[in-house]
């Protein structure tokens, strides 16, 4: 334990992890959707800092750009565009019985995953090998070009399907004429 405390990075880790834990707790307990989304920003930001401590810069920027920059903004836009009620909402909650069950399941999963992860990787050291964006690009357009192309189709299908579900019915438009 003495060793652990003498390392500066570990202090950083502890601080960030505690903050993340609290933010994640707020995501599920907040009765205000917008507050929950902002807490999610803090959680994801914390995970970016953890990746930074591990020396994985590329992942850090991916988390910041894609998750915080795109996904969260999409959430907020979604709330705005669908004119969902903002602010506190009492119905955004479950009965205590359900909550207790959820807490038990979540706690059990946390202990299970945490214990097995520490058991498997607890003594391993992070070797500081730098993966550059160039390396990732070569892999992406070499060996993994097929899944890469398939992902583009997933996105296209999601985009078009989203438009189809969101747009007005052709019949309704005719009715209005």
């Amino acid at each position, binding site marked *: 334990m003495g060793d652990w405390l003498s390392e500066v990075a570990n202090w950083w880790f502890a601080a960030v992890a505690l903050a993340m834990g609290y933010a994640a707790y707020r995501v599920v307990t907040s009765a205000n959707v917008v507050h929950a989304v902002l807490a999610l920003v803090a959680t994801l930001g914390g995970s970016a800092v953890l990746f930074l401590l591990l020396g994985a810069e590329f992942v850090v920027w991916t988390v910041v750009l894609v998750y915080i920059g795109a996904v969260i903004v999409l959430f907020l836009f979604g709330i705005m565009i669908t004119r969902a009620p903002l602010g506190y909402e009492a119905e955004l909650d479950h009965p205590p019985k359900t909550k207790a069950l959820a807490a038990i399941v979540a706690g059990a999963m946390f202990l*299970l*995953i945490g214990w*097995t*992860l520490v*058991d*498997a*990787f607890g003594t391993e050291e992070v070797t500081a090998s730098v993966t550059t964006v160039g390396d990732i690009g070569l892999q992406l357009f*070499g*060996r*993994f*070009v*097929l*899944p890469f*192309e*398939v*992902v583009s*189709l*997933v996105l*296209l*299908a*999601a985009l*078009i*399907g*989203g438009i*189809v*579900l969101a747009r007005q*019915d*052709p*019949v309704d438009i005719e009715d209005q004429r």
Partner: protein
Amino acid sequence: MSALFDYHALAPELILAFTVMAVLAVDLMPVPKYYAAVTGLVGLFASIIPLLTLALCSELSFCSDNGARLLFGDSYVVDTFSLVLKGLFLVSAFISLLLAVGYVESDRYYQGEYYFLLLASVFGAVVMASSRDLISIFVGLELVSGPAFLLAGWRKGDARSNEAALKFFIVGVLSAAILLFGMSLIYGVTGELTFSGIRAATVGGELPAVFTLGVLFVLMGFAFKVSAVPFHFWTPDTYEGAPTPVTAYLSVGSKAAGFVGLLVICYSAFANMRDIWGPALWIIAVASMTLGNLIAVRQTNVIRLLGYSSIAQGGFMLAPFAVASMVEGVELEGALFATVTYLLFYAFMNLGAFGVVMAGMSKVKSAELSSWSGMAQYAPGLSMLVVIFFFALAGVPPLAGWFAKLVMFQAIISGAPNVWAVLLGVIAAVNAVVAFFYYAKVVKTVWMDSVPVEIPAAELGGSGLNPALALALGITAIATIVTGLFPGVLSFFGEATRTFASGF
């Protein structure tokens, strides 16, 4: 990766990808609505051709290399196993598309993007059949399910369709997250992405407990996709609420894709982990067939009945797997042959059964079993089809289902002296009898009961069948009868997939 890109091996995927785009483009042009569907059908047909040239490669002059083609550093494999499954996906997509044409175009929610989404989902299934690494198979699975979520919610103004899509989506996303978490744990332990690499890394030696957790997470993820008990609760609601042609596709195409993923990942990546996934699959198989059948008996709606019966049929498909992995000395090849053969037969029978439901709904405007009673008096042809498909699903000879059940029982009995194999065999036999009861109930209602009085006589009979639906019913009915009389026609393809398991 070799300098020469193997375009021949990827030709089915390339043609299908082109078709997906072409359908979208045709839909935008000022041409009749059905052109988009025709484009899709032609494209599906065209992508079957390279499957044949790949399968018959040794016989053709322009085709040089033989055997399995390994692409992208063993991540993507084109062998007889994947060719057979791609054929299954393409043919069942062809029938699903035929089922959909009449329904979608007469519906007030018509939009041409329906075909685009259906074909995109099929494309994902085709990619999955060849994927031999964690990333490819996950991306393929996402492409299968993503468009399916949207298709389930196609009837926007219908609250039940919305419920179907939302349940399917939330469960689908949850299962994808569990699956991906499991995959990341496996990658963390082995440092390998390809299935062959994972298998090599797990030979002998002690593996940390986290690897077991990863394997179980991956199994759970796929169990959701194939709607195995206890991960099945979304299935009946989604099947009932989604438009019927979409349900037909979900119960065959997307379910088969999940099975293929499960098969491939268990047999090739977790080949040394039999003692982990064997017992898990045994429990899932028994629970699926028993619970699925018991609840199906009580259903009064034909679509819900087929939904629960498809859960039970999934249990039958998993049974050979479970036996082969738990009993020493039973070869995996036999189990693989049984499961793939069952899948091939099931695809035709189940698509046909849903086709009959659609035709029945166009006659009486309801999928409630009570309103179907006495249908034989005003629609004898359709009632004959009810007999063919429901008895085929029940496994009555000489209709297709009996052979699928036979190979399934053969595979289970091959582990006979073992207690678990015998127990599974007994449970499966009891379930086959229970299943016969409710399939026969549908046939009895249609043929023996009298027409309900509250339906005005003038409304009965309804309009004639849509030609595309009639064609789909014809194809599946002929396939069900012919393969029942000559099961070798389809089991030949099942036989071809044995090479996959014998490769290890």
